[in-house]
């Protein structure tokens, strides 16, 4: 039971400040360390206890007047929802209130957990490190295969959420000995104001910041947040406009624009595609996707081809056969991509990172557990070739 504390930070540095001590006490960390029994009820005095319906509307700068009386336009995502007083956007978390455009999920994360960075997934970013991941309710898309539908595709008043300022997040990340803060598992594009404030604090504290997103963002907000990020993993859900319309409830073009913008800004970039049988697994479609990644983002861009498991609205579609994933990987490698991973098949050799020059395994993984790293200063220990990524 005590072994877990080595990476949850329960026996972290003693010289914590008062704020950190209070926060950790509130979160139960001290209770756990001291063997104090669990609390009977998640009482209101528990600072980190999740609560329902505690919305705190905060004015967002990503609204603009439309020129029509009483109508504001949200310019955060490509939907550009036009909202009258009391109306809410498609994302469920942004609305016009008292004549102002507000976000309802500022400092209200519904998911806060520390995870291996590989789980976000980032395979070329400080392997073996840990990230404090957080997300709020809401999403601008409506994927029929959403894994976190009970949080992302839900209104914030229906989801229990914690109340955490940017400073609290950073303190918690430090207490958990995380090296990064990841905006992941939900859709950070809809809580960009929170991302911005946390990322600024994290930078000040020397923590890395990672974004895992659908990339469904307008150009201006994307360019405003990018300088505060160290890496991004964008879901390129398919290379097919019709798939985006029918299965994702969005459009492909803005996602491609996000990817090229981030690449242009020099951000560390990884791409994830969940391969869904019969919907986006056709080899020609995979080949087209890979060609685009190669030409627009570069051959060193890691591509995660992830296995689909039946869930949510697609619960009646079988999981992706491993051979389909392997075939897609072959197609990607043939296209010229250098780092193509198979996701969600723990133990598959395509989870390992190979040196692009000599082919030696430089990082060995089982799922998101890093077993072995044979990199020195970002170079293959066997041949000395540079491997693209952020390794420190």
């Amino acid at each position, binding site marked *: 039971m005590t072994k877990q504390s080595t990476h949850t930070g329960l026996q972290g540095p003693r010289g914590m400040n008062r704020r950190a001590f209070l926060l950790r006490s509130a979160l139960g960390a001290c209770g756990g360390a001291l063997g104090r029994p669990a609390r009977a009820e998640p009482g209101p005095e528990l600072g980190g206890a999740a609560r329902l319906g505690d919305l705190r509307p905060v004015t967002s700068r990503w609204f603009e007047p439309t020129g029509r009386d009483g109508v504001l336009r949200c310019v955060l995502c490509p939907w550009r929802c036009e909202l009258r007083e009391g109306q809410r956007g498609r994302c469920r978390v942004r609305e016009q209130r008292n004549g102002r455009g507000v976000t309802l999920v500022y400092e209200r994360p519904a998911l806060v957990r520390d995870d291996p960075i590989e789980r976000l997934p980032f395979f070329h970013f400080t392997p073996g490190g840990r990230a404090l991941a957080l997300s709020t309710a809401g999403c601008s898309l409506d994927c029929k295969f959403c894994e976190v539908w*009970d949080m992302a595709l839900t209104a914030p008043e229906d989801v229990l959420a914690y109340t955490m300022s940017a400073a609290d997040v950073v303190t918690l990340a430090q207490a958990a000995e995380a090296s990064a803060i990841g905006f992941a598992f939900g859709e950070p594009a809809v809580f960009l104001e929170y991302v911005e404030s946390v990322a600024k604090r994290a930078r000040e504290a020397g923590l890395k910041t990672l974004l895992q997103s659908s990339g469904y963002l307008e150009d201006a907000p994307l360019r405003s947040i990018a300088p505060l990020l160290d890496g991004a993993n964008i879901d390129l859900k398919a290379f097919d406009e019709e798939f985006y319309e029918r299965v994702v409830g969005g459009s492909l073009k803005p996602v491609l624009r996000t990817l090229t913008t981030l690449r242009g800004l020099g951000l560390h970039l990884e791409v994830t595609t969940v391969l869904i049988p019969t*919907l986006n697994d056709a080899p020609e479609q995979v080949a087209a996707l890979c060609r685009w990644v190669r030409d627009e983002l570069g051959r060193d861009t890691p591509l995660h081809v992830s296995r689909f498991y039946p869930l949510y609205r697609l619960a009646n579609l*079988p999981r992706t056969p491993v051979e389909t994933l392997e075939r897609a990987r072959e197609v990607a490698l043939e296209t010229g991509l250098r780092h193509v991973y198979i996701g969600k098949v723990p133990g598959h050799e395509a989870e390992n990172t190979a040196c692009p020059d000599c082919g030696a395994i430089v990082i060995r993984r089982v799922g998101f557990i890093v077993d072995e790293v044979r990199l020195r200063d970002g170079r293959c220990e066997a041949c000395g070739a540079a491997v693209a990524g952020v390794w420190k």
Partner: protein
Amino acid sequence: MRNERQKQRGLSAALCLGLVSQVAQVLLLRESLMLFQGNELSIGLVLAAWMAWVGIGSACASRWRRRIVTAEHLLLANAIWVWAVLPASILLIRWAPRWIVTVPGSSLTPPEMALASLVITAPACFALGVQFVLSARIGTVDGAAQGTGGGAERSYAAEAAGNAIGGVLVTTVLARQWNAVAIAFAAGGLLALGAAACGRPRPAGAGQGWRWERSALAAGLALLALLLLPPALHRLNRWSHRLQWAGLVPRYELVRVVPSKHGSIAVLQQDATFSYYQSGHLLFTTAGPATKRPELEEQDAAVLAHLALCQHPEPRRVLWIGGGLRGVVREALRHPLERLDYVELDAALLEAARPLLHPSTAAALEDPRVRLLHTDGRLFVKGAAERYDLIVVDVPDPATAALNRFYTVEFFREARSRLAPGGVLALTADSTAERHSRPGAHRNSTLFHSLAAVFARVLPLGEQPLLLVATDAADRLAADSETLAERYLQRGIRSPAFAATHFRQHVRPLPMRRVFWSLSQHGRSAADPLGAAAQPPLMPPSIEAQQQALPELAPVQAARFLNTDMKPLAMYYTQWWRNEQTRAGRAVGWFATAPGLDLRRLLPVALAAPLLALVWPRRRPLSPTAGRVLPRGAVWLAAVTTGFSTMSLQVALLFAFQSVYGFVYEAIGAIIALFMAGLALGAGVSHRLCGGRPRPWRLALLQAVLALYAAALAVGLPATTGLRQPHLALWLFGALTLLSGVMNGVDYPLTTACLAATSGRGERAGGWLYGLELLGACLGAAISSVWIAPLWGIDACGWFSAVANAVACATLVLALARSRLAGGGAPNAQDDAGSMPER
């Protein structure tokens, strides 16, 4: 003599109709279930649509005049229509995925299902409702029985008898031997044949010269049909199956469709993998013979097998219920086991899968340590003499009453009694990463608390899916990956899909502590037990500390968080959760509202119904001669409540029977057939005793008897869960079902006669009451199975029925008493002569 022949013709038409209706109902239900991907909520929707259309058809036909054509001609024309539309309905359902399923593999919302159900059932069911009235009309003896509804009563009894025969036929013989299109075609043909036989006999001598030529022609046509039709129907069936699956999951190759008594099994292939669907619902996917790396393909099975087996330090004898075909048996055998008993309910599933399994899986099933058992898992656990170190329940989530039986406190007790000292029980359940879904949290906390009510220690592992392990021993369960890895390595296991490192991936301390906190804390708030799912503090205490603190916590709200045979709450939460996932909108709201419903609020409804029935619609004399009056509303109410309560009691009996006897398909079919037989018997006896005369006091008495019977069931049913002898259970529930059917059957002739006497139109009364009773039955089936039984208990079905019948009885008594006070004549002078029981 002529009247007697006429009666016979009407009866045979109704018998035929009953048989064909039952066959058609089973067929359309099974086919619809495929379209709705096994969502059992759709059964209620299809049945509701069915009854609505039959009721509408019946009510409409009862208003038609005889002017245009004779009933015989209409009967034949309608039967020919049914003959055409029954197979066409099957084809329509199979074609429907192309226009109703927007994204392959995606589920339909309840409104979509309701709309589809209405469309699918309309052509056949409306015609079947019409057919009932026409059969009754033919059976009505000219002149004598007009205005008494006598034809309708006899038809009702004959139709019920046909239902019973049809139910037995289709479940035991037809579904196994024939394909659905052929059965539908044959059933329609039978109806047409029956209708043709009902035609009035020609006058003697007419057309005699043609008799032998016509016979020869008919024989020749029949022979030709026998030779040509079966292959043609077979081809049509196969073609429509391909059409169906191409709509449901395009680009998958349909390998085979295997009929099974538990639902049609379809096997589809993509690459070298095979996916198995039953009743349109995805069961599992396996590696095929050509799969290069079956262990990786079936990795979820490997994870489950090793996680569960390593929870016991030294498992030797293991019982695995369900799920073995997807690779778990192969992986389990890598552990040093002495015996693995694998229970698979559906033998047809194994037969379908056997030639398509990867050799490693097939070899595992042939391993001498493996004992393959085709029986109900619950029944096996109840009766097994063996003791096991580990019992794994690997069945789908408790979305139905049959599946819920593997997640109840009673089952956990039975399983515990089959565990060797220190034995472990493991079960899986779907979950989401952060457990934000309210019904999902309710369901999984209910499973946790139900296990904790039986076992000393319960440990949740993993997040998606959730693995719950439980034991009484303090030193068994391992909540850390190191212990599990050590046990795994000590056993010298080498699996291509699983290494000791995998435990670090699947057993992570902090998420486990959070899951434990969520499951154990939720469901303890007395003020708001079904409030939002409890979310843990960001870093909860260790599992050991949480475990120790459990006794200090507020008690679990047992009424909403203990899943029992008598109150299948987990089933309710699972259905609610699934509807939440399909974005069912308002339906989700109903699921959310019902648990908090204060039953006292229903009292005004219970009081308003009789008041309304007494004043509306206007009263009419009960019989033209007696001068006594009876509001028709009181009779209508009696019909609705009888339909409601008998169906509600039927649901209660089936739920209770399943939990005691185990899910045995033929037995359930026999129980339903018994109900229909009782219905026929009751209707026949009632008709004979009443002779079509109105007996309002007797009707009131019957309602009182039904109320008492329902109350007695409500009191007695909980005691049946203690039954240990399956055969005794079969006899007991069979007898109770027969009795329910008899009482339901007795009611119809009584209500028809009363209503016919007030209206003077027997067939119209018969048709109208038939529709009303179906409406009540439909309400009873839907409300009892979806809401009453899971939320207030199976015994509550009895209480609801008792109240409904008591209200109907009180209404009748009040109406009759009022009539007497108003000077409406002597009670037994004519209307109710002989209506009181013989003394």
